[in-house]
């Protein structure tokens, strides 16, 4: 099949490393390769590069550089934050976590596996719109609550959570608050101080840095044990020789991503709204998640009667890369826990499509998506026994 155009509409799964980021990284592979712990010039240069990157990342979220610890990505940051807080506080009798039903698996699976260590978790409902209520958080707080961990924005349906409100409640009640901001970074303003965030996870590859690098912000005064112990890197809090090129790239990526957020978001939102408006004109097609409290680049729709994976493969053959549910779980055949959490029935959850665009997406890209998507949906419905039944039911 000849492909007129290739539109990458899966930026929530991962992004290409940008030219600027790669350019910043390249000197650290074969020239600036010193170990940042080494005392000689090459080592000191590497240490300095990391310091400058830390400053940039800190600035991007309103933190102090000493409050930032580089990790191997968002998953490690989530694991460290939650296991760390729980280990620090369980011995004081605090054995309860509050989270939502639609967190990323890097949060959910940690909470689930902590159960066998006697940690109880409350999974708050997010309702049909996919937004948790701050008052529900307040109501769930108990004497023994150690941690509230609620994502800043959902990775599948893009809904934005009331982080500042939750932060305020937690600070007032003296409870630690962690947020997985992997999807929010670069899309929404983050200010850990104003928003009363105690711990925050971020990941590089969603904002045009390398895969395998991220960071955990830990507010000064909060002490949690290490997840990875060993050498004295990261102020003694995260062992392992630092991934210098990736960290340098993360610094540049955060700097770029947190500049002009408003203007970029406005541009992206316009394209997103066009996609939503046009796609939801198709029969038996619905938007998943709140339309207003939504990441500027996220479109998540369900088409009754078709299955997501075959939809993705067809779209790919026609030059559109997208996702059905979260890429992280697409190895599994279970329907997305996020879509189930907002009340979709299994067969509709199976037929979902996530398009995630950025301000670099063009109107021509949107045109292309809108050109190829409807016939693909039609084609798959034509071969679907489920669609046949739906249509029969309608005509009955």
């Amino acid at each position, binding site marked *: 099949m000849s492909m007129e155009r290739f539109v990458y509409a899966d930026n929530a799964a991962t992004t290409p490393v940008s030219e600027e980021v790669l350019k910043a990284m390249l000197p650290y592979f074969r020239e600036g390769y010193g170990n940042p712990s080494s005392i000689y010039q090459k080592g000191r240069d590497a240490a300095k590069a990391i310091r400058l990157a830390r400053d940039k990342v800190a600035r991007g979220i309103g933190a102090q550089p000493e409050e930032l610890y580089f990790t191997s990505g968002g998953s490690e940051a989530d694991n460290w934050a939650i296991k760390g807080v729980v280990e620090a506080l369980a011995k004081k009798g605090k054995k309860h976590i509050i989270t939502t039903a639609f967190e990323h698996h890097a949060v959910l699976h940690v909470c689930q596996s902590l159960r066998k260590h006697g940690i109880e978790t409350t999974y708050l409902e997010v309702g049909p719109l996919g937004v948790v209520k701050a008052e529900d958080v307040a109501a769930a707080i108990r004497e023994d609550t150690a941690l509230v961990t609620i994502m800043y924005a959902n990775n599948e349906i893009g809904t934005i959570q009331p982080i500042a409100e939750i932060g305020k409640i937690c600070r007032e009640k003296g409870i630690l608050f962690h947020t997985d901001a992997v999807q929010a970074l670069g899309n929404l303003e983050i200010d850990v101080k104003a928003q009363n965030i105690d711990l925050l996870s971020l990941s590089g590859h969603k904002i045009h840095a390398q895969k395998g690098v991220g960071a955990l912000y830990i507010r000064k005064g909060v002490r949690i044990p290490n997840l990875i112990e060993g050498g004295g890197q990261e102020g003694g809090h995260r062992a392992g020789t630092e991934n210098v090129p990736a960290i340098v790239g993360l610094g540049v990526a955060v700097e770029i991503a947190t500049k002009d957020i408003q203007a970029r978001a406005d541009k992206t939102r316009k394209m997103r709204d066009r996609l939503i408006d046009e796609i939801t004109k198709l029969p038996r097609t619905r938007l998943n998640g709140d339309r207003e409290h939504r990441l500027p680049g996220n479109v998540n729709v369900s088409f009754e009667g078709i*299955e997501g*994976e075959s939809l993705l493969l067809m779209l790919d053959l026609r030059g559109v890369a997208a996702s059905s549910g979260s890429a992280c779980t697409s190895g599994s*055949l279970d*329907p997305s826990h996020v879509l189930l959490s907002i009340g979709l029935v*299994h*067969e509709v959850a199976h037929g979902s499509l996530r398009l995630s665009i950025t301000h670099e997406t063009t109107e021509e890209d949107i045109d292309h998506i809108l050109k190829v998507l409807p016939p693909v949906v039609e084609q798959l419905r034509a*071969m679907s*026994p*489920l669609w046949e039944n739906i249509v029969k039911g309608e005509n009955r």
Partner: protein
Amino acid sequence: MEYSDKVLDHFSNPRNVGELTDADGIGEVGSPACGDIMKMYIKVEDGKIADVKFKTFGCGAAIATSSMATELIKGQPLEEALKLTNKAVVEALEGLPPVKIHCSVLAEQAIKSAISDYYTRLGVDPLPIVGPIKDTHCHAHFH
């Protein structure tokens, strides 16, 4: 996940898609909640599968296995069609990712189900000929 070229070929150009309005047997397996439904239509002439069509709701592998399975039984005597194993379908497709093996099982069962229906319509008890149709559960791929 890696799909073979053969899988992608059968997915993007599926053979025998559609329905047979004058089918002699129709089989349907799977469930919408699991994300896979296969419906097979067969036309039987002289004890052979004269024609076969399918409709499938499911992933790329489900469509590809439906396509390949129908190709493999088209024109075959019923007893040959009943011998088609999911393994044969997987081999003909040059392999399937482990999590997708259950799709090939579904295709095998869909054929059996259609032939079952054919015998039932003839007033013949299909059970001794076809055997039981396995109830494929959502998590079949974990076995």
